[in-house]
C-alpha cells in the first residue's frame, strides 16, 4: 500500500513542481500580498483623528491646533460638503478658520468628542456648532463591497476561463467554421454573463439586505445601472485576458493578478482613505474602486446620478477600451 501511495505522491509532486505558473503564483502571491500591504499600511504611525478644514489648512498653519500630533487635516471645499462628512462620521470634526474659528462636531461620535477636546485645548474661543448623525454600521459599509467582489470574480473568472476552455477544447475553432463573427461571439458572452450577474446580484442583494435590515438610501434603478456598468467593465477585462491565450496557467495567473489588487485596493473590506496618495491613485484606476465608490454613494448616502457620473463614465470607458482591445486581439484557435 505504501509503495502505491508513495508512487502517486511522487508523481503528483512532480506535476505540481513542473506546473510553473501555479508554482510561481503559489509562492509569489502571498509574498506580493505581504509586500503590498506593507507599502499600504506600513510607514510612520497613522493619524488617529481626521479634521476637515474649510478652504484648506494652509491659511491657518500658524495656529497651535494644526501642530497637534496624530491629527490629519483634510481640506474640504465648502462647509456644506464638510458637514455631510461630519454627520456620517467620515471626519471627526469640521473647522472653519477665522476669528473666532467655528467648528462642527458630531455629538454622537466618540472620536469627535476627543478631537473637540484637543481643539479647545489649543483654542478655547472656537465657536461650537453641534450636529448629530450615526456612523455607518460596518456591515452596511461592507455590503456593497461584497456585492462588488462577487461581480468581479464571477465576471473575470466566469468569462476568462470559459473562453479559454472553449479555445483549448477546439469549440471556438468549430464556431469559427460557421457564419458566427468574433463580435457576435463576444457580444453573446458579454450578454450571457451580464444576465447571470444581474439575476445573481439582485438575489444576493435581496437576501443580504433582508438579513441585515438594510435599506438603500438612493435609487435602486441607479444601483442597477452601476451594476450593469461595473459588470460590463469586469467582463471586458476578463475577455481581454482570454482573448488570445491558450495557457491555463497564464490566464489563471493574469486573472489572479487582476483580482488580488482589486480585492485589496478597491475598498472591499476597508477604506483606503488614510493610505499614501500613490496607493489611492493606483486604486482609483481599478474598475472595482469606481464601482464600489458609486455603489456606496448611492446605497449609503443616497447620491444621485450627477454625483457618481465620473465613476459611471470611467466604467463605460474601461468597458469600451477593453472590449475593443479584446475583439481586436481575439483568436479563435490555439
Amino acid at each position, binding site marked *: 500500500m505504501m509503495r502505491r501511495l508513495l508512487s502517486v505522491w511522487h508523481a503528483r509532486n512532480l506535476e505540481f513542481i513542473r506546473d510553473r505558473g501555479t508554482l510561481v503564483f503559489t509562492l509569489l502571491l502571498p509574498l506580493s500580498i505581504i509586500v503590498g500591504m506593507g507599502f499600504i499600511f506600513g510607514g510612520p504611525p497613522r493619524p488617529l483623528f481626521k479634521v476637515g478644514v474649510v478652504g484648506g489648512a494652509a491659511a491657518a498653519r500658524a495656529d497651535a491646533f494644526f501642530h497637534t500630533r496624530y491629527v490629519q487635516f483634510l481640506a474640504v471645499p465648502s462647509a456644506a460638503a464638510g458637514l455631510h462628512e461630519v454627520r456620517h462620521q467620515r471626519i471627526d470634526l469640521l473647522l472653519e478658520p477665522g476669528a473666532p474659528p467655528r467648528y462642527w462636531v458630531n455629538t454622537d461620535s466618540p472620536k469627535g468628542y476627543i478631537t473637540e477636546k484637543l481643539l479647545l485645548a489649543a483654542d478655547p474661543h472656537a465657536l461650537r456648532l453641534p450636529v448629530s448623525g450615526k456612523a455607518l454600521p460596518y456591515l452596511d459599509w461592507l455590503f456593497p463591497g461584497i456585492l462588488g467582489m462577487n461581480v468581479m470574480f464571477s465576471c473575470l473568472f466566469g468569462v476568462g476561463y470559459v473562453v479559454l476552455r472553449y479555445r483549448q477544447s*477546439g469549440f471556438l*475553432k*468549430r*464556431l*469559427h*467554421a*460557421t*457564419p458566427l463573427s468574433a463580435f457576435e461571439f463576444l457580444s453573446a458572452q458579454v450578454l450571457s454573463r451580464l444576465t447571470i450577474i444581474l439575476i445573481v446580484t439582485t438575489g444576493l442583494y435581496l437576501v443580504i439586505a433582508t438579513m441585515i435590515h438594510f435599506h438603500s438610501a438612493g435609487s435602486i434603478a441607479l444601483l442597477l445601472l452601476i451594476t450593469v456598468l461595473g459588470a460590463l467593465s469586469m467582463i471586458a477585462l476578463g475577455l481581454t485576458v482570454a482573448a488570445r491565450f491558450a495557457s491555463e496557467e497564464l490566464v489563471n495567473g493574469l486573472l489572479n493578478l487582476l483580482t488580488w489588487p482589486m480585492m485589496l485596493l478597491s475598498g472591499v473590506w476597508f477604506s483606503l482613505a488614510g493610505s499614501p496618495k500613490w496607493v489611492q491613485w493606483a486604486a482609483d484606476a481599478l474598475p472595482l474602486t469606481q464601482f464600489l465608490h458609486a455603489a456606496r454613494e448611492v446605497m449609503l448616502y443616497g447620491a444621485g446620478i450627477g454625483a457618481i457620473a465620473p465613476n459611471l463614465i470611467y466604467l463605460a470607458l474601461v468597458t469600451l477600451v477593453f472590449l475593443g482591445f479584446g475583439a481586436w486581439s481575439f483568436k479563435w*484557435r490555439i
Partner: protein
Amino acid sequence: MRAPILEVRDLLKQYPGVTAVNGISFSVPEGMCFGLLGPNGAGKTTTIEIMEGILTPTAGEVRYRGEPLGERFREEAGILFQATALQNFLTVRQSLAMFHGLYAHGRDIDEVLKLCSLEALAERDNRKLSGGQLQRLLLAIALVNDPAVLFLDEPTTGLDPQARRNFWALVESIKAQHKTIILTTHYMEEAELLCDEIAIVDRGRIIAQGVPRALLREHFAAVLLELPRADFPDGARKLPLQRIDADDRVEITTDDLDATLRTLINAEVPLKNLRIRPANLEDLFLELTGRELRA
C-alpha cells in the same frame, strides 16, 4: 465534366522552419466524394483547414463556386474536425439547436437526428455519449445547415471497427443525397469505399491523384505477393523481382504469378507464409514513397 464546386490553386502553407503544404492544386466537381489520403503529418489537415477557411495560406487560394471563400461558403459548408469538444451540460438536441441558430437556413433538427440515428439520444447530455455517438453528433452538427459541401477530417480515427462501419454507412447515405464531400483519412479502406477520387499527399505535395481503381491499375500488375521479411533470405534480394521492402514484410508485384512463384521456389525462398492478394491504396502509397501509410 461537372463544374468544380471547389478549386484549390497552388496552396502553400509555411510555418517557421516547416513547409506544411507545398504547392497543392486540385478541383472537386459538385457531388463528388474527394479523398485526401496520406500519413500523419503529410499536410492533409492543413490543406483541408485552408479549404475550410480556418487557416490562411501563405500563398495560393481556394475558390468556392468560382469565388474566394466568403459568407456564402460559410453558410453552405458543413465541417467535422478531427477533434471537437462541445459545450458542457447541453443535450444532443440543444447542441444541434445552438449550431442551427448560427445559419440563415438549415435542416429540421428532427430530420438531422433521424439521418444520424440520434433520435434515441436526443435528450442525452452530450458528455455521456460514446465515441461513435459523439462522432455521429458532430456529423449531425456538420449537416444542420444542409450543406452543399461537407468536410470530414479523419472522421473515424479512434472509433472501434463497428462504429467505423456504422459511420461509413452514414456517409454513404449522405453521398446518396449528392452532397460534395471532402474527406481526409489515413485508412485506405475508408478511402476505397467512400471516395470517387483521391489525392495522395506526402510531405505537403500531391504525389498521385485519380480514381482509386484507376490509380491501382496504373501502378500495379494483377497481383501482389506478401512474405514475412524474416522468410526472405539475403540471397534472394538479387532476384529479378519488382519488390518493395516494408517494415516487417517484403511485397512483390507481378503480372505473371506462375513465373514469379517458380523463381522464388528455385531460390529456395520458404513459401509457407506467403500471401497473395490484390493491391490496395496502402500498397500504392508504399510503392510511391517507400514508406507505409500509417508509419
